[in-house]
């Protein structure tokens, strides 16, 4: 039983990172209708920027995190303006390939600047774990979980109560109608990329603290696509929930089947992905699109 509980908790913590990345996917998809495949690479880039600020520039860590988020925010604007703006009205393949091209560029840039080595942040959290009842949870996992939930509520209230958030929902619903009541679609697109990149960077910092600062943490981006699909491409809360579900399933697969089939944990998200696509393609909370000719 204790084994199962431990698996459950470790699944929740990795699932929370999946959830944050999935939230980034959903933020962009909701407003612009684009699935940004490069989300994982932006996450990795954010982790490296934080490393650069905190270790190479010797800034205190509490300052490095917000600076990273601000950097990612403007990076998002830049990506939208330079790479995705010309893709408006282009075919789906062009859009997918554009974000895949971004994957290559980000990966290459990180490899050129920092190389394929494993780096780590200065220890900024206390070593001893947090005890909840009989459970011992590592500090980073605990705070990561809190941040993910907090960020979800920030995003949700942003969509619900602020003016630009309302504009973003309007654009997601009907671009032409939104434009005709004076919503600037360009600004909404830029905003959603910016927020999504900040989210990814936050996830990157958490993940890099849990593992290490290395370029392979970008793989979490592809794995969390299945989290997006479990929740549905349009649902903010669904993405976090999907992330947690995927994380827990992955952790249980690794724990119980890992000895007989090695590497089952890495492949599990993709098997779930394929099954969901076959059974319930629009996810738990997604919208089913009705097409007209």
């Amino acid at each position, binding site marked *: 039983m204790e084994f199962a509980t431990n698996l459950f908790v470790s699944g929740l913590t990795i699932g929370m990172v999946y959830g944050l990345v999935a939230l980034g996917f959903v933020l962009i998809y909701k407003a612009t209708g684009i699935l940004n495949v490069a989300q994982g690479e932006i996450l990795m880039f954010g982790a490296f920027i934080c490393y650069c600020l905190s270790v190479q520039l010797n800034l205190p860590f509490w300052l490095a995190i917000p600076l990273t988020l601000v950097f990612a925010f403007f990076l998002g604007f830049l990506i939208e303006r330079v*790479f995705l703006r010309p893709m408006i009205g282009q075919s789906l*393949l062009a859009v997918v390939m554009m974000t895949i091209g971004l*994957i*290559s560029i980000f990966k290459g840039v990180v490899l050129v600047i920092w190389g394929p080595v494993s780096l780590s942040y200065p220890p900024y959290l206390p070593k001893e774990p947090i005890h909840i009842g009989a459970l011992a949870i590592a500090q980073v996992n605990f705070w990561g979980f809190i941040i993910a939930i907090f960020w979800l509520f920030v995003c949700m209230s942003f969509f619900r109560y602020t003016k630009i958030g309302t504009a973003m929902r309007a654009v997601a619903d009907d671009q032409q109608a939104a434009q005709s009541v004076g919503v600037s679609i360009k600004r909404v697109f830029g905003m959603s990329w910016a927020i999504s990149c900040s989210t990814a960077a936050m996830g990157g910092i958490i993940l890099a603290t849990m593992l290490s600062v290395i370029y392979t943490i970008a793989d979490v981006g*592809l794995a969390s696509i299945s989290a997006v699909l479990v929740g549905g491409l349009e649902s903010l809360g669904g993405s976090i929930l999907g992330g947690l579900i995927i994380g827990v399933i992955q952790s249980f697969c690794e724990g119980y089947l890992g000895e007989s089939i090695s590497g089952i944990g890495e492949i599990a998200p993709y*098997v779930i992905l*394929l099954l969901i696509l*076959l059974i319930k393609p629009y996810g738990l909370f997604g919208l089913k699109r009705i097409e007209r000719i």
Partner: protein
Amino acid sequence: MPYPPCGTFNETYEQDAAIFRTKAHWVWLVSVILFFLAFPIFADEYLLSIAILIYIYIIAAHGLNLLTGFAGLISIAHSAFMGVGAYCSAILVSNLGFSFWLALPCSVIFAGLIGIILGAPSLRLKGFYLVMATLAAQFIINFVIMRWKVLTGGVYGMSVPSITLSNMEFDTNQSFYYIAFIVLILSTYVAKNLVRTQVGRAFVAIRDNDLAAEVMGISLTKYKLLSFAVGCGFAGAAGSLWGHWVRMISPEHFTLMGSVWFLGYIIVGGLGSILGPFFGVIFFTLTMEVLNSVFTGLSASYPEAIGYIFASREIIFGLIVVLFLIFEPRGLAHRWEIIKASYRLYPFSY
């Protein structure tokens, strides 16, 4: 819109349907084929190996072009299907004692069947959802190859015997070149004629609007699965050839990045054009060879430069794809058509 040379009038249906319409076309065709048949006589080992690599990649890219460029179904599992073909052929030849000439069609059929199975989600899904389904297919195929150690040798890979025909052995680049060349010609012939038939037109109709195509009486089930079968079959042929050429295959040759590169080939070459894969593969392979030689040259004076070669390949690939998507989304094949038309129409280009 292709412009025939001035003064060409089609008076019969045969003339109208001909691929090589004028005598000049035929002269070009024969001389180009003769040139490439004679290529091993004067080319060195290095040039030959690049040529073989280009041929094999073009065969696979033809498949992806039929699937993605003509039928509009995006697949990022093409490299994995190449792996299916390579392993199928290798296992048939080395474990079951088949000859290569039987194993090649078998691997085409097997890769096509796997393609049908993993392409089945395309019946319900499209757009991003289909992209994700093929992404899952890529990882699952790679996982199966890696874990089915009894058959595939796992991560250590397996060695593949060379091709034999009675007592001839095709184990040098000079001899293998001809096999790759012949398969390339055959596959180009099949691809070119497939897209001119009813099947090819059905693919294009599905690409343009699948609901409208279904309303017009095109069976989506049949043609979507057929396009997966054909596309993956080409990949299987390319994989089989590749395995018998490098003689040592392992799962790390058939990764996600490989599949992404195939998409890059057909986008840069030109989607929905038989010439597209030729342009794309040749352009990328030559660019990367130039990059390699630049870095090798640099490493003479800066030894640490060699460490950046992988990263800069990634950056260059990404930049080329991104720039093409922004500035020439129809690819090099479209540019070629424009050049041809302006040559034909000169001096009255209106």
